[in-house]
């Protein structure tokens, strides 16, 4: 069951590192720290009419964390603050076993993380950081 965690899809997603980097002049930047493993995610966002126009992330973290950040890098454009918060809740629900079809197809590859409650935070950290970054940008 453990090995299911690291299927090709998740490895490829992590390695794609979509969206990795920094933005030159972000409207908002947030940093997420995982207190227990020391992992760190930084996310820069630029907004246009309250929606994400550009996004970049830097991740010091595990494959799960990097894969989650890459999924965000691929799909986050166009989200507003409320949608980012909702997305975070949706991913948490997916990890807890909810059956609804996920917003993005890539999120399905996190289903094998379900039984490993101690790894849920690895997946959620980038989504937390995304939510915080948009909030900061929108609050400016």
């Amino acid at each position, binding site marked *: 069951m453990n090995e299911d965690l690291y299927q090709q899809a998740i490895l490829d997603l992590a390695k794609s590192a979509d969206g990795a980097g920094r933005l030159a002049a972000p409207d908002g930047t947030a940093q997420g720290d995982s207190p227990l493993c020391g992992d760190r995610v930084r996310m820069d966002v630029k907004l246009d009419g309250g929606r994400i126009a550009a996004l970049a992330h830097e991740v010091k973290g595990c494959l799960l964390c990097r894969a989650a950040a890459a999924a965000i890098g691929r799909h986050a454009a166009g989200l507003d603050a409320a949608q980012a918060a909702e997305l975070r809740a949706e991913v948490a629900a997916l990890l807890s076993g909810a059956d609804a079809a996920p917003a993005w197809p890539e999120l399905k590859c996190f289903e094998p993380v379900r039984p490993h409650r*101690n790894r849920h935070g690895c997946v959620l950290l980038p989504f937390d950081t995304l939510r915080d970054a948009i909030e900061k940008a929108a609050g400016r």
Partner: protein
Amino acid sequence: MKFSAHEWRGHFPLLANHPRLHYLDNAATGQLCAAAFDAVTHHELTQRANVLRGTYKLAEAADAAYEQARRQAAAYLNAASADEVVFTSGTTAAINLVAHAFGDTLQAGDEVVLSLAEHHSNLVPWQMLRGRRGVALRFIRLADDGRLDLARLDEIVTPRCRLVAVTHASNVTGAVSDLVPIVAAARAAGARVLVDGAQMVQHGPVDVAALDADFYAFSGHKAFAPNGVGVLWGRAEALAALPPFLGGGGMIGRVTAEETTYAAPPRRFEAGTPPIAQAVALGAALDWLRAQPWEAMRAHTTHLAQRLLDGLAVLPGLTFLGPREMTERLPIVAFNLAGIHPHDACQVLDAHHVAVRGGHHCAQPLMDRFGVEGAVRASLAPYNTEADVDALLEGLKDAQRKLK
């Protein structure tokens, strides 16, 4: 639901191992229930690991069990969330946590209200806080029957009051505190409320939502669970407002040599490896207790305590420390026999296989209030029977014969 004390006894292995024992020292420590013992055994022998994000199966199991214990404690207290449950090493540690984390936000001249019925564990930490911060302590006095005298509550809980810390029930008199006016007075003053539940939780589930307190503390070992574990419940908003108390592993956000950020509650208050197996067993005990027929059990212990009060009342030279009737009180009965020191009485009772405790019961201000050095205390649990009460009464008559 029906209740049989004899059946209930079957859940307490020590009592089976000591068939002649009349254990009436439950206010000091309850006997360990089988649910808790089995949980310790299961945990230690199949899933022992440190908590905090181990990524192997054993550690996942230990983590899950520890977090389940939090939910079980929250359910027993009717807390809004498991995150309001902080595991500590006991009531004393829980109260000291508040006395530091909350107490150190107070200023000279701020007031903390206690009662004269407090156990030393809910008195000394505040005296120490007074030494550190210059706060003033004010005391709710006791009526002659040991109940809190709430007549002049508004003079005691002044606008300078920042915290009211009172026991839910006295470990000496058994009197249950009338918390409604106390909480109202605290709220009117804008003060927080800490309730010492060390004597209460073993008499049935508690509803912290209904109490409307901010903090509630209790110990595992008095609730038929292991030593070395207790709970500080705190209202989410009250916990979130507190800085940490102890520093160490597990309670941090990020640490550098220069500075440190802290985790959210409850972890912020759980520095170091927590009492994992003990918490798991406490959760199991509370879960089991929650499903018990408490109404019938309370009727049973009330009947026994009444039998004890009646039996004592006819002994020559007897004085009670506490209410004589069984309303708004627990089955804890403290008393003295003229001319007989509590320890001598207890020693003779031991020869009758009756286990009761004599002394000041860590409540010297209460003893002072009644002008005594100590008392004999019999404290009942649902596994006690009429035979236990009668053995105590017989033993006391024997002590009066022998020691006079």
